[in-house]
């Protein structure tokens, strides 16, 4: 599978940067992950769940810590399980509590980060985990690219199946309920999806900035789109463009890829904000 991609890149992108295998892998990863992030991002912004996804990202630290405690070499599985549990917990708390969900999520976020740091710094060996903070897209292996491909397929299937329900719930839960949509279930399903996607991508993007990557393109597109179709197309374009541009520039500047991508997305956001009055 990867050979086809390598030949494709060699054939169509005869540039110096495209000679390296790690760049080819990373480019494919960006192309695979962009639609996933675009789809999730638009819905996260619709649901005003930016803070929620941020918390999931930060809590990955605790997931890693638990994985380390249990002696796992690759903590991904534990991280995903932990974040799914956390997502369910938050969505149950949201349904039960009458106070602002902001406060609940804030409390959970702080607690989880603290817990993660406490466990990971035990014995003073935190440095080896700093790759999770910043992320390293260039280290992605073909096997991991395959994982991303599966994630993409999963999200596409989910989106074709239940996108409309997600959207109606995000417009207004009561209205959704009157149309026979099981609001609480849909809400929890979405929380779990966000948790899985964020956690799976965290080692390549980094805990510190993963949320920006999710939110920025959608937030930018929102300023200049009038309907759902435009919103999604523009978000996808922004994610793809800033992903590719960030990857290239990080190669030339030798900077962290995730952060460079986010900076490009931020540029788009700024541009959209300035252009907004024309589209209002």
């Amino acid at each position, binding site marked *: 599978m990867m050979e086809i991609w390598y030949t494709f890149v060699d054939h169509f992108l005869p540039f110096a940067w495209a000679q390296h295998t790690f760049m080819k892998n990373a480019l494919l990863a960006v192309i695979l992950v962009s639609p996933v992030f675009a789809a999730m991002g638009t819905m996260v912004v619709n649901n005003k769940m930016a803070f929620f996804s941020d918390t999931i990202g930060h809590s990955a630290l605790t997931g890693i810590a638990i994985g380390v405690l249990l002696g796992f070499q690759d903590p991904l599985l534990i991280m995903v399980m932990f974040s799914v549990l956390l997502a369910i917990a938050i969505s149950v708390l949201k349904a039960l509590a009458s106070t602002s969900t902001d406060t609940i999520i804030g409390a959970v976020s702080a607690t989880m980060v603290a817990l993660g740091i406490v466990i990971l710094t035990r014995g003073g060996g935190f440095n080896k985990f700093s790759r999770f903070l910043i992320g390293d897209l260039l280290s992605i292996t073909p096997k991991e690219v395959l994982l991303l491909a599966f994630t993409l397929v999963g999200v596409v299937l989910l989106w074709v199946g239940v996108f409309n329900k997600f959207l109606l719930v995000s417009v207004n839960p009561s209205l959704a309920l*009157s149309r026979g949509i099981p609001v609480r279930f849909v809400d929890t399903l979405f929380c779990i999806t966000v948790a899985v996607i964020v956690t799976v991508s965290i080692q390549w993007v980094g805990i510190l900035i993963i949320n920006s990557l999710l939110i920025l393109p959608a937030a930018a597109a929102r300023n200049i789109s009038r309907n759902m179709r435009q919103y999604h197309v523009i978000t996808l374009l922004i994610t793809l463009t800033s992903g590719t541009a960030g990857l290239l520039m990080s190669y030339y500047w030798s900077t962290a890829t995730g952060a460079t991508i986010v900076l490009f997305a931020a540029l788009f956001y700024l541009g959209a904000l300035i252009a907004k009055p024309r589209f209002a």
Partner: protein
Amino acid sequence: MFYTGIIQKLHRESCGLCCTELKNFGVTINNTEILYDINLHIHCGELTALVGPNGAGKTTLLRAMLGEIGHTGELSFLDAEGCRRNPVVGYVPQRLDFDPGLPVSVLDLFSVCLSSWPVFLGHSRRIRERALASLACVQAEHLLNRRLGDLSGGELQRVLLAVALEPNPDLLLLDEPLSGIDVQGKELFYELVSNLRKQYDLSIILVSHDWSLVSFYADRIVLLDRTVRCCGTPQEVFSNESIIKAYGPAISKEMGHGPWKPQIIHSGGVRA
């Protein structure tokens, strides 16, 4: 407490002789009894107005009927043969709480409600035509491609009504659909709703604070204050001295003016 998942979207024609029945219906949230002992029979083709003071539990009643909050007692929908089934419920909320920046057009909203084909992949022509037809019923065809956030309050309420009417509901729940809408807008809306009842033969429950318009358009008025205080035709309710005294002092002045005409009473004295 039961959690009712009774409401399901079904595509069918409106029936002829159905009714919605509430028996010993009550709602208790966090040990606070909000509604108790409600017995109501709502018939098809009737506009039932739900009036009552603030905090009387009007919105709670609608939300419980939607299944959004749990309730005690029985809620049953009976059709002509008398067997229970799942009705199609249309709902127009008091105020649609949504993010005004949301890039959802009116057509998107229809599409989301009517089909499961993901909206971002575009709209089928069938949905577009259905949306247009439905919007035409509320005189809002021109709003099809506008963003929800760009609509005025009255326009939004009309669009929501159009959405609620598609597919034809058996029961239409309108929760103060007119708060903050001007007089002309209100009369247009009431006229519309009133016609719907005749055209589609559906039962409508309307929560309102507007006694004068309600008395003109409603077939039945239910005065709710944690339970049903009074229930009957507008004439019956307004001729009940003690009710008028307790809940609607301003309306009594209007009573002498004869036939039920919509009038705007500028009075802060109406408790409802």
